[in-house]
Each structure stands twice: as structure tokens, then as C-alpha cells.
């Protein structure tokens, strides 16, 4: 595969990083500030989308920012896998920006300038992770994301935010420094570089299976943003953030950066063949399976809607890692594809949770009975999102889950089939009652029968669009599928 040198990948990363400057400068004029946010978000989608034809044709772009360590520059590369993630992230950022405006203004939140500026830096870091050409660059943007999201998680600046922020950094920064950094250096001393290469760079390094297993486990837990148990505790804690943060960062960007990093390591540092040779896939699938089942069970017990979504996310993230760990073609396809499919579904659900909070002020599921009759569009969107995540046709989530099921059969690990089945049932058990009770149960609060209306349009439109996108992805998954195929089997 050939890569053209181009400055545009850098532009795709920098546009929102530099964009945070005009956002900060126009803090006193909210309308101007939000215009900047939308303009930058749109610009980002356009730049990222402009790479699409080349990438679909099997090409790509690259750009070296700086030579820092022998053999390992800070460099960007637009390949199919990065393109897939960047496309999902940049499109959803645009929706989130619109939604943020509705949400933050309706609730009259403080510190909105800091909020939008940090958001812009965070999306830069996300695109940086997607387009990172090697592990060091990925690590750089990974850390940048951890730090830029800290002010977002602790936005309310109260005692609870302080506690959650501390937990957030302890888990995420702690694991990346203590586990991922040494793992990266061990790989560097084994292979002499850290490039993402199809087929991996460790195959010829002559490392012993024990070393490989150690490095793999260090990476799996080191990228704790993926929420693998037992390093998942930060995600429910981070739900104290304003809902747009939870929806985009903790439904899409941050958590998927974790999964994306792990998949990069599995596919392009180790390589599926090497993992098959030394039979390490089972390590990955075991950790992921446990996380899936436990997280789904815990989700059942959560009454706070956002916390239930958080545990659902933890489980769904492990689907992606499980798929990759199957090391069969369909399994890997399903795992990678689920990054995109889950993103559209989960962001819809979080948007709905935020819309319910804006419109009715409710956070707890037990207080939402009958609310669906007053907010039908929101609840319909919520249903679409749920069905997609459960994996029912005709929604996007079905396609990735179908691939995962085939992958489990192909890899001959029938127990994984059981995991997928049980988990799908659990998903249905924790999502569908919310929809059912919303529409059919007796109103929990008398105000639901008169005062409550749908959330403002700034909230309602994005969540309807992402719900429709989930539906559309079932019928037109071609671009995503093609990108995933190109990423896995060039």
C-alpha cells in the first residue's frame, strides 16, 4: 500500500486544537463562540471525509511531524482503520456540538467557554489517535485526551466532581504510565520500531511467548479507557460530567480510543498470525468475556440512567475486544465494525438521557414511568438506540453482532457464542423495560401529564439524526464494511 505525503492529516488534527483559541477568545459572545465550534466541527468532517475516496481506493496519506526517537517519529498516517474511526468520531462530534449548545444553554451551565475549548482539544486528540502512524504518536494523543477531558469530567467543580476527577485520572493516567508505557518500551527494544504494520512488527523479534503474553496483558490493561475489568471503575464515576460529555466522550471518543488502541496493538503490533501461533487470543477473549457478562449484570441493577448506560458501554466495549481476540476473519471484522455501530447507538441513548434531564429534570429510571407519552420522539430514538445495541435487525448493531457470532463459530470457541447470547438477552433486559415503562406505565410524576414537553430542538434534532443513522447503517453499511475489510485484509 502506498501513502502520499500530505499536510492534510495534520490539518485534520490541528483544526480543532487551534480552534480552541478563537473559542477561548470569544468567551464573552456566546453566539460567536458557538459559531466557531460549529464551523470547526464542520471543517473537521469535511477534511476527514475528503480522505475517503483515496482510502477506499486502497491508498492513504502520511505526514511526519517530528523525529523524536531513532526509528520512531511523531507521525500521522491515514489508513483504512484510522479513517474508519476518524470518520465516526468527526461526524458524531458535529452532532454533539449542536446538542451541547442546546444542553448547556437550557441548563444555564457555568464555564461554557472552558467547556467548548476543552472539547475542541479532546476531539483533536481523538483524531490524533485515529491517524497515529505508530504507537508513540498514539500514546501522545492518548495522554492528551486523558488530560483535556479532565476539566470536562470535573465541570461542576464540586466535591463529587473532584472525587470523580481524581478517580478518572488515577485509572487512566495511572495505567497508561505504569502499564502501557513500559509495554511500549519493551516492544521498542524487541522490534526497534513502533510502526503500525499490517501483520505486526513482533513476528520476527524472536520474543518468547511469556514475554509476548506479558506485553499483551500490559497493553490490555494499560489502555484502561477501554474499560476492561478490573480497570473500568472510572467510567461510571465519570458520569458526573454534563451529558454531552458523557455521550460523546464516554460513549464514543474516550472509550473507543481505548478500544482502538488495543485493536491497533492486536492487529498491527502483534498481528493475528503471531497471536494464533502462540495461542494468546484466549487471554483476550477470557478477559473480555468476563467483562461483558459482569458489566451487563451490574447494568441491570443501576437505577441512574447514565450509570446504566455506562455499564452497558463497558460491556459493549468488550464485544469489540472479544471480536478481535477471536482472531478469525469474521470475528475481527465484527469487533472493529462494532466501534462504529455501537457509537451511533450509544450516543443516541446518551443524547436521550440528556434530553430527558433537560426536559423533565429526571436522572433515575424509576422516576421516568410514563414519560415516553410526553416525549415520544426522544423515546422512539431511545428504542432505536437500544435495539441497535441489543443487535436486532433492522439496526446497525445487528451487522456487527452477526459478524461476531459467525466469528465465534469460525474460531471454534462455542463458549463465546454462549457469552454473546447471554449478553444480548441481558442487554434487552436492561434497556427494553425503560422504553416499555416510558410508554405504557402509569405516570410516575403528575407533571408528566401536563407540563413536560420534548427537549429544545438543538437537543432533539441531533438525537433523531443519530437514531436514523443507526437505522440507515443497517441498510447501507457498505462504506464502514469496506473500510474495515481494507483495514484487516489489505
Amino acid at each position, binding site marked *: 500500500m502506498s501513502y502520499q505525503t500530505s499536510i492534510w492529516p495534520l490539518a485534520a488534527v490541528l483544526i480543532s486544537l487551534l480552534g480552541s483559541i478563537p473559542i477561548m477568545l470569544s468567551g464573552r459572545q456566546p453566539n460567536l463562540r458557538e459559531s466557531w465550534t460549529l464551523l470547526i466541527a464542520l471543517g473537521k468532517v469535511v477534511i476527514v471525509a475528503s480522505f475517503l475516496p483515496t482510502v477506499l481506493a486502497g491508498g492513504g496519506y502520511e505526514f511526519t511531524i517530528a523525529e523524536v526517537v531513532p526509528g520512531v517519529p511523531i507521525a500521522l498516517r491515514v489508513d483504512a482503520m484510522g479513517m474508519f474511526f476518524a470518520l465516526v468520531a468527526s461526524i458524531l462530534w458535529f452532532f454533539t456540538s449542536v446538542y451541547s449548545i442546546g444542553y448547556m444553554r437550557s441548563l444555564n451551565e457555568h464555564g461554557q467557554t472552558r467547556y467548548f475549548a476543552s472539547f475542541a482539544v479532546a476531539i483533536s486528540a481523538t483524531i490524533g489517535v485515529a491517524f497515529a502512524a505508530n504507537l508513540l504518536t498514539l500514546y501522545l494523543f492518548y495522554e492528551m485526551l486523558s488530560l483535556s477531558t479532565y476539566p470536562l469530567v470535573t465541570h461542576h467543580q464540586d466535591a463529587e466532581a473532584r472525587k470523580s476527577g481524581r478517580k478518572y485520572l488515577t485509572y487512566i493516567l495511572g495505567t497508561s504510565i505504569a502499564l502501557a508505557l*513500559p509495554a511500549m518500551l519493551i516492544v521498542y527494544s524487541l522490534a526497534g520500531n513502533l510502526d503500525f504494520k499490517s501483520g505486526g512488527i513482533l513476528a520476527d523479534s524472536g520474543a518468547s511467548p511469556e514475554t509476548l503474553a506479558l506485553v499483551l496483558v500490559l497493553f490490555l490493561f494499560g489502555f484502561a479507557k477501554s474499560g476492561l475489568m478490573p480497570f473500568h471503575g472510572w467510567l461510571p464515576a465519570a458520569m458526573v460530567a454534563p451529558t454531552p460529555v458523557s455521550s460523546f466522550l464516554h460513549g464514543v471518543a474516550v472509550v473507543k480510543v481505548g478500544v482502538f488502541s488495543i485493536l491497533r496493538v492486536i492487529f498491527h503490533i502483534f498481528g493475528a498470525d503471531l497471536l494464533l501461533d502462540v495461542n494468546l487470543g484466549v487471554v483476550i477473549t477470557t478477559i473480555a468475556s468476563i467483562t461483558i457478562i459482569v458489566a451487563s449484570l451490574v447494568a441491570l441493577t443501576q437505577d441512574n440512567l447514565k450509570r446504566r448506560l455506562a455499564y452497558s458501554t463497558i460491556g459493549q466495549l468488550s464485544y469489540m475486544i472479544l471480536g478481535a481476540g477471536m482472531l478469525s476473519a469474521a470475528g475481527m471484522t465484527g469487533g472493529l465494525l462494532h466501534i462504529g455501530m455501537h457509537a451511533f447507538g450509544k450516543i443516541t441513548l446518551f443524547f436521550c438521557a440528556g434530553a430527558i434531564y433537560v426536559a423533565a429534570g429526571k436522572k433515575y429510571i424509576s422516576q421516568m414511568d410514563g414519560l415516553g407519552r410526553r416525549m415520544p420522539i426522544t423515546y422512539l430514538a431511545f428504542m432505536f438506540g437500544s435495539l441497535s445495541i441489543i443487535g436486532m435487525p433492522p439496526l446497525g448493531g445487528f451487522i456487527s453482532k452477526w459478524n461476531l457470532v459467525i466469528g465465534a463459530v469460525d474460531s471454534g470457541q462455542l463458549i463465546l457464542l454462549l457469552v454473546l447470547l447471554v449478553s444480548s438477552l441481558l442487554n434487552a433486559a436492561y434497556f427494553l423495560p425503560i422504553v416499555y415503562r416510558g410508554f405504557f406505565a402509569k405516570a410516575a410524576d403528575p407533571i408528566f401529564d401536563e407540563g413536560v414537553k420534548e427537549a429544545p430542538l438543538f437537543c432533539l434534532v441531533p438525537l433523531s439524526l443519530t437514531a436514523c443513522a443507526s437505522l440507515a447503517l443497517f441498510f447501507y453499511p457498505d462504506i464502514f464494511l469496506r473500510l474495515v475489510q481494507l483495514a484487516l485484509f489489505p
Partner: protein
Amino acid sequence: MSTSNLHMYVLAVPLLTAFFVNLLGRISRRWVAPLVLGALTFASLASLCVLGKVLRHGSFSYTVGNWQPPYGIELLLDPLSALMLVLISVVALFASISAIQSVRQELPGQEHLFFTLYLILIAGLLGLVLTADAFNLYVLLEITSITTYGLIAMGKGRAPLASFNYIIMGSIGACFYLLGVGYLYLMTGSLNMADIAGILPTVDGTAAVATALAFILVGLWIKMAFFPLHGWLPNAYSLAPTGAGLLAAPLMTKVSIYLMVRVMFWLFSSDFLFLQNPLVSTLVVWAAAIAIVSASCLALAQRDLKRMLTYIIVAEVGYMVGGIWLANSAGMTGAILHIVNDALMTLCLFLAVAAIVYKLGSGEFDKLQGIYRRMPVTMAAFTVGAFSMIGIPPTAGFFSKWYLIQGGIEAGHWQYVIALLFSSLVNAVLFFRIIEIGYFFKDGEQHGHEKKEEAPLLMQAPLLISAVALIVVGLGSGPLVESIIKLALPAGF
């Protein structure tokens, strides 16, 4: 002036200016700032020229007053010493811009006295990195120590006691060094480093030579505050006037590390150091790992910004000592790169602390509530410095740590690798504790009460430049290593 002895002017100008500062400063204090800044600007520019010359034309040595070695004093200009010249003069320049403001506030009327000592100290440091004579090195070491004693004693409260403590420890260290040099003189009859290095392999009596090495190392370890010989440093640097801490903290320990490298590889050989008795280097790396972990833990116990930073300095000394004794190329590269990076990030953090102390009177944690809102520029730069200390890319601190860890892995010294990672985590805790205090509000207090009250522009400017420098040096660490540090490594690495 001819360019062939430009390096002499780098040394001489600050030294001579020191006397003018004292004389003219007595007439009017207004003379102090332009003289100090002028001298240091000249030194910085000249040292950059010297570095350029060394990189273009290679190393050369210079005999002072044309007295030929081994009897005359020889100065050695190689990439390592030229790099150190640039580092010292540039760091001193930026420190002094801020120090002038801080000294005016803390020691009103004594600026001329303070800056006389300050410039002599800088001249001493510059001399230390240039000299190629073991006894001359001792003399310069004493010059820097004595001026530092004076500077520290100018502080308030218990500062004279801290200075006295340092005098005791510093004198013991100097004695050890001098004894070591004495042994070498007995064995070789020479004090010139190159001369000694040439004669040493030919003399019998390994025990005497090993004793000399041990004495010299212990002497330098006291001077660089290598744990557990660090006792003097935290009090001395935190009780000294802020302006003195600004200069001493980034440079003193780093210059001592440089001296250790110089003595180890230009007096002795790496065969002698590492091969004859491999247990020694293993023990030193273990000691470094213990130093890193212990000093990091001690830093956790501090409730004052300055004191916390002083313990971090002690931990960083462990980084570099360990890196050098790993005895491989990556470790050595990391240690020398870390001399540069650590000087810059300590400078950045101390400049931030100087600005905070200027406005708040001290750096106690309790006073830092809501400081992000009050001093946003200062704290932005402080945060960059903190990230560099934690080792977050692309700040400079990450890349030297990268080489050090790589060296540890290659040498199989896992205890050192774990110590480095541990210290990174502790640094994260230390700095995020401050970020948390500064970013959140007291319980019950609401947002937006604090007004902005930044330190003067002349304190902010060097601070911002040092913060930007951390990122620039980080991103430029590839070329920096390839074109300067690779050349500065001791032979064989």
C-alpha cells in the same frame, strides 16, 4: 576580541561584571539589572557561538595564559562542555530576569550584594564545565559552594541555619573530592585530567586508584544531593531567597552530574568502571532506584510547593546517576538529555513558584485555592512544567525518561525501570494534587470571586518562554540527540 578565545569571555564577563555590580550598585541600585542581564545575554550568545564552533570544527583545548599542560590550567571544549555552557548561561539568563523582580521584593536594598554572589556563582558553574584540571575543578567547586552558602544565608527565618547545614555537608563533600584527587596525584604525579587518564592504566595499585574513585564519587554525590546524602538540599533551596533557588535548583545538581560524567569517563575508563567489578555498577543502580523511590515518597509528605519541588530534584538526581551507571548507550543518552531537560523543567517550575510567591508570599498548599482563576498564565505554564515532570509527551521530560527506561530494559535493571515508573506516578499524584487544589473551590465558596492578579510581566515572560521551550525541546529531541548529545557521549557509548 578574537573568536578563538570566545569561551574565555563567556567565563570572564559574568565574573568581572560581578565586581561592577557591587561597585556601581552601591552608587545606584538601578545599575544592577542592566549589568546582570547584559552580562548574561552576552554569555548566552557567546556560548551559543562556542557550541556552534565546537560542532563545526570539533573539540579543542585551551591553555590559560599559555602555560602548557600538564602544569598549566587546561580548558576543554568538547560538545558536552559546550552544551553545558549554553545550558548554564541561558538558564541563568532567564532565571535572573525573574530573580531581579523577586529580589527587589524580598531583599530590598541588597540587590547589589545578592547579584554579586549570583554572578560569581554563574562564573563558577561555567568554569566547572570548562576545566580539564582535577585540582582547578576543586577550586571552582568551592567557589560555587561558597557563593551558594552566601546566597542561601540571605534568606529569611531559618535560612542561615540551612546554609550552615549545607556548609558542613558541602565541606565534607569537598574534602572527599580533594582526598580522591590527592590519591590520584600520589599515583600519577599529575593533576591534568588527560594526563592522569593517560598515566593511570600504567600504574600498579588498583586499590589506591579505586579508593580515589570512591572518594571522588562520594564527594560529588554529596554535592549533587544523591539520596541518602541529600539532607542539606531541601532546606537550603526552599529557605533561600526565591531568586537564589531559581538559579541553584535548575543548575547546581545538574552540573554535579556533569562533573560525575567528566570524572568517570575522562579520568577513569569505562572498562575500569564497569568491567573490573560489575557488582559496583549494579549497586549504584540499585542505590539510584532506592533514591528515586525514597525521594518521591518524601515529596508526597510536603505541604509547600518549594519543598515539594526540592524533593523532586533529589529524585531526579537518582534518574541521572542511575542512567549513567546503566553503562549502555541508551542510559547514557537519557542521562545527558535529562541534564538538559531537567534543568529546563526545574527552571519552568521554579519560575512559576517565584511568580506565585511574589503574589501570595509563599507556596503553601493551603494558599493555592482557586489559583487557576487568579493567575491563569502562571498556572498554564506551571501545568506544562508539571506534565514534563510527570513525563507526558510531547514535553521534554518524556523523551529523556524514554531513553532512561529503554536503557534500564536493555541492561536488565528492572528495579530501576520500576523506580522510574513509580516516580512518574508519584509525580502525577503530586502535581495533580496541586492542580486539584488550584482548580476547585473551597467547600461552599462559589465561582467567580477571585480577581486576576498576575505577577509582573517580567516574571511571566521567562516563565512562558521556558514552558514553550519544554515543548519545543521535546519535539526537537530527535535532532538534539542526533546532532549534539550523540557527540557529547563519553567515548565507547
